[in-house]
């Protein structure tokens, strides 16, 4: 790693350790319009010319906010790299057939919801059809992200005590963004999927609330915007916010998912020496946790474990997958021009 930017000691150590363990290189890249959570462009997912991984973070993050993003993505890289070295690194991808199964199930559930609506509230057919694949890919993105996010946060928390306050801020911010996501589509998305999607994020938040104990909070109390959280522990902060969202009546789903997350991640000994074996074990737990969540949501046949290349290829031809799946579901009713524009 070669960088001109200042990095705190534990972060430099983590980067070096990651590079040595995986026999790879890491480059840090500041970008004004980067995703606030940062982005990892890694050799295990993308075809890269050199054995160099890139961690991109927002240009305005200059201190600990940047350090946390680096810590998170290094941990993610370690998990991916360990899987690649010790077995096979795979992600949840989709095929034409699996898209059909997913879209069909969403459509049937959507019809049930629509039947209960008054005429004035019913979704226009075109909108309903468009929603099917959008929702499908949304779940693909989320299932490839949420279980790992919980695990990576827990790992960083245990391994990097010096950046816990920063982590807390990031967790709170991410939680709020995820909570807001899909809220605008609340009346469009079938209830079941709205609840399941929120349930996944709820489970992650509650798991992290339990992992990040109260004494770490007291953060940054000089910040006026954070004062309202004074004397609240993390769990209370996160729970209070969740109770104000529209889906709270369905909390039971979120609690069940939390049980699933707990069941898998409680097995981890977070402070064990950071070896390849340890990160490979995390990878395997992540796979099992993802499978368990998919089973719970009855989406097991929507996605398949494949190499990252497979998913990148699927993204490239997703328009065709959608078109074929819709043809199978709706037959001639759809018209030939669907999806061409």
């Amino acid at each position, binding site marked *: 790693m070669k960088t*001109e930017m*200042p*990095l*705190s*000691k534990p972060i430099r150590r983590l980067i070096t350790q990651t590079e040595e363990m995986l026999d790879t290189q890491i480059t840090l890249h500041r970008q*004004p319009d980067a995703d606030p959570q940062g982005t990892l462009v890694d050799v295990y997912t993308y075809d890269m010319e050199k054995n160099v991984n890139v961690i991109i973070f927002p240009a*305005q*993050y*200059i*201190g*600990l*906010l940047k350090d946390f993003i680096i810590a998170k993505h290094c941990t993610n890289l370690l998990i991916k790299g360990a899987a690649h070295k010790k077995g096979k690194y795979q992600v949840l991808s989709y095929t034409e057939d699996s898209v059909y199964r997913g879209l069909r199930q969403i459509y049937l559930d959507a019809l049930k919801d629509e039947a209960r609506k008054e005429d004035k509230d019913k979704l226009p057919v075109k909108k309903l059809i468009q929603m099917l694949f959008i929702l499908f890919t949304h779940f693909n993105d989320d299932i490839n992200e949420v279980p790992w996010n919980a695990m990576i946060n827990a790992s960083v928390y245990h391994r990097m005590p*010096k950046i816990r*306050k*920063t982590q807390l*801020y990031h967790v709170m*911010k991410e939680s709020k963004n995820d909570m807001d996501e899909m809220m605008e589509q609340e009346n469009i998305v079938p209830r079941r999927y709205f609840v399941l999607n929120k349930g996944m994020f709820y489970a992650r938040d509650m798991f992290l609330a339990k992992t990040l104990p109260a004494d770490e909070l007291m*953060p*940054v109390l*000089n*910040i006026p*915007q*954070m004062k309202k959280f004074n004397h609240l522990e993390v769990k209370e902060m996160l729970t209070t916010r969740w109770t104000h969202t529209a889906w709270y009546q369905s909390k039971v789903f979120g609690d069940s998912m939390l049980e699933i997350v707990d069941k898998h991640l409680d097995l981890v000994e977070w402070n064990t020496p950071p070896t390849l074996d340890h990160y490979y074990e995390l990878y395997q737990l992540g796979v099992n946790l993802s499978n368990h969540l998919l089973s719970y949501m009855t989406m097991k046949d929507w996605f398949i474990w494949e190499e990252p290349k497979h998913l990148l290829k699927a993204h490239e031809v997703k328009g065709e997958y959608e078109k074929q799946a819709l043809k199978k579901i709706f037959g001639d009713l759809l018209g030939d021009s669907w999806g061409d524009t």
Partner: protein
Amino acid sequence: MTAKEVVELAKKGRAYAQRTKYKEAMAYYNKALSMDPKFAECWYLRASVLIDTGKPEEALIDCDRALALNQNYSDAWSKKALALFNLERFEDAVLAATRASTLNGNDAMAWYIKGVCLDELGRSEEAQVAYGKSLELEIIQDMDAERKKVRQS
């Protein structure tokens, strides 16, 4: 060439530097400085490019030139702290960062460099205080940026 034209040259250099086109940025800064060597901000801007291109020794010289013109130039102190950090002169970097943060208490980078250097010197408790201050400032800036984004959308 008028003062206004020199400022324009520096602005152009800055625009190139922001797009990491350092060679072009340096050309504009050099031209501006050859016209007006008493342009403290331009020395500071050139120091920034020198740091980004891995030349901390030269950056340090430029920071000192800027500071010779204006002892209270907080950004130049902050940049000097960064140059010193990159040269692993941690004690000196702490002094420069302290000066920067005294002149401008809202300089998150100065607080952060101070924290990193104190940590390197084994002064953990002091480092935590500096990190804490840096984090506070970063969070405030981040929240402001978020609010702006929401207003714009």
